[in-house]
């Protein structure tokens, strides 16, 4: 069963953006392709993950190699890209390697930005879409459920996604180290730089933070204040507002610092020790470096934030190694389980077959003994049951063991043949 599982696709590691863009299909097209692949019997089960960083087909098929080619031929045809053009960009993984790939992708270990959280949601969406198209069967169902569980464990047991890896988020994280909760803190945004705006937005995501915007061009300040649902303040009142707020983001194009030591000292006077956090994203810097020496004032410039990000990235990579080990263990467990599932239908039908024989023979024997009392009936019942169980024992153990060792299919065929079990047993029980 696990041998029928495959993953094929292209990602930021193998294909340039232009190709990924071309292959990324919208939901309607995806439904079409999924229906096609399952409908024509190319794949017994199929699902497609399509994001800006990867396009991957997860499938179960009798001939995985063919199914994979068919899938990409079908997807490429939507955009007029032939399979030969795609072939060099594609990777394909079968069996346990496909399981590992699914777990790594869901856990964000294969992401462009290691540990970024969006991918899990994207895989979940892809799974839901395939489910709604009824192209998910028992194998993909258990694979993806397990992948989501592994992703959750990776997130909780390692710190691969814990710390900020963008400058704007690093600023938010630092604000959390200074302030006890960000809800209700006020922010002053000086200048209209894009990065400053982004940092202000990230801060606003953390709670209700009133934002004040000051800019030399007051129309631009008004505009930005509207976008951030904040308040525009005249540039001349900059320092008066600075004395009130908790966080100041500066991103003006000024060539000289606009916040000097004296200004900052003035601003923190009468704050009663309430800290003031400067996020200086401007280059050259808008806040004089020595302002950081004031008690209760913290100044971080772009270089500082970048170095925080670098430290966090290194930390993520270290944590990723632990996550990989965790994934590795889970893959082994899952592959074993999948393999053991493969023999379950055979064991069940073997048991049913023998039970059928037993019942029939028991009825015949009892028919010949019309005067049998309860004790005799029970004895016969126990006798037949005992024989059936003894007969079943060896083949059941053999099937289980062989599935663990990875050659369950051979024994399924042998035992089906020997005991005359109808049809080929294949596919696990419905989840």
């Amino acid at each position, binding site marked *: 069963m696990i041998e029928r599982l495959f993953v094929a696709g292209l990602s930021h590691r193998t294909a340039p953006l232009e190709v990924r863009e071309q292959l990324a299909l919208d939901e309607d097209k995806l439904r079409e392709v999924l229906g096609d692949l399952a409908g024509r019997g190319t794949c017994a089960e199929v699902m497609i993950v399509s994001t800006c960083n990867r396009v991957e087909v997860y499938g179960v098929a009798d001939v995985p190699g063919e199914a994979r080619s068919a899938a990409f031929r079908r997807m490429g045809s939507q955009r007029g890209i032939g399979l030969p053009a795609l072939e060099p960009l594609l990777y394909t993984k079968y069996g346990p390697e496909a399981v590992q790939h699914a777990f790594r992708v869901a856990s964000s270990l294969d992401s462009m930005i290691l540990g970024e959280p969006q991918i899990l949601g994207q895989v979940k969406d892809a799974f839901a879409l395939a489910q709604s198209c009824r192209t998910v069967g028992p194998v993909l169902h258990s694979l993806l459920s397990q992948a989501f569980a592994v992703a959750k464990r990776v997130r909780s047991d390692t*710190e691969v996604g*814990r*710390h900020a890896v963008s400058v704007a988020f690093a600023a938010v994280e*630092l604000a*959390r*180290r*200074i*302030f*006890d*909760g960000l809800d209700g803190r006020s922010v002053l945004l000086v200048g209209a730089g894009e990065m400053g705006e982004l940092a202000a937005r990230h801060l606003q995501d953390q709670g209700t933070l009133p934002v004040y915007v000051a800019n030399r061009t007051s129309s631009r300040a008004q505009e930005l204040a509207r976008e951030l649902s904040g308040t525009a303040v005249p540039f001349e009142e900059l320092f008066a507002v600075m004395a009130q707020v908790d966080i100041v983001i500066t991103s003006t194009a000024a060539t000289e610092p606009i916040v000097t030591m004296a200004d900052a000292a003035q601003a923190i006077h009468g704050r*009663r*020790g*309430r*800290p003031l956090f400067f996020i200086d994203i401007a280059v050259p810097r808008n806040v004089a470096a020595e302002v*950081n020496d004031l*008690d*209760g004032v*913290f*100044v*971080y410039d772009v270089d*500082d934030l970048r*170095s*925080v990000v670098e*430290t966090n990235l290194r*930390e993520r990579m270290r944590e990723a190694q632990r996550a990989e080990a965790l994934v590795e263990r889970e893959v082994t467990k899952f592959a074993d389980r999948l393999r053991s599932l493969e023999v379950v239908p055979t064991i069940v039908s073997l048991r049913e077959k023998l039970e059928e024989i037993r019942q029939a023979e028991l009825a015949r024997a009892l028919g010949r003994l019309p005067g049998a009392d309860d004790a005799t009936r029970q004895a016969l019942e126990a006798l037949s049951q005992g024989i059936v169980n003894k007969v079943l024992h060896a083949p059941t153990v053999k099937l289980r063991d062989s599935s663990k060792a990875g050659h369950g299919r051979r024994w399924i065929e042998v035992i089906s043949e020997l005991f005359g079990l109808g049809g080929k047993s294949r596919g696990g029980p419905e989840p």
Partner: protein
Amino acid sequence: MNAVVFDVALTAYILAATSALVSLAWRRDTFARLARELTLGGWVCHTVAIVLRGFELARAPVLTLAELVSVMLWVVVFVDLWMERRHGLHALGAFVLPVVLALGLGLPTGLRDLALEPRASSAWILVHVALVLVGLAALVLNFGSALMYLLQERQLKTRRPGSLSYRMPSLEMLDRLTLATLTAAFPFLTVGLALGFARAGRAWSRDLLLDPLALFSIVMWIVYAATLSGRVVGHWHGRRAAYFSIVGFCVLLATLGAGVLFQGRHGS
């Protein structure tokens, strides 16, 4: 027997302090969890040790300086556990436990058989002792949070915060904690000391001025009074307030040291 159980408790505290400190250096939760469990285990043993001692000596186990310190540490560990659980202050143990140990390790020698002079033992003494104990316990936590404040502030000021910074609560929270523990400690300390002086003034008369523990207590009280009034009236915050808390704690240690080293009227 109680001394043996006490040693077990101390051992658990040593291990707990070690793993709490290790957890600070790494951004990983395993050691922090281990530290919490060891602390809890140690605290349970500590409880048993105190109760056992009471039974074995057939008297309240709070009549010698060593016993007092032991009970105070018991309160400190309890409050530390409570705050870590309730407020998620996971790093607190790393700063409080070493203090507990520094004081606790001196105890086994002093625990044995030093008792207050019989004529001083009365209900008043017990109240005096209990109040001062609660005050001192809060001051140990005050020291822990002040130390954390300074470390966190240092980390943030260098603009290259390391994993230590991520392990500790926010600056504001630490500042509040320092103020809260000091505010909680002060009334207990004041009333407790006042009771002691009132009682001793009558019982010991002139000897009071020669008792080192009593003298150091006054100095300690003055330092903490200054810190608290600075915070409340002068609106001291942050670094300065934290430094004062640490100075106060040094005097506290000197006070306890004086009580142990010099023979005064307190008995040891």
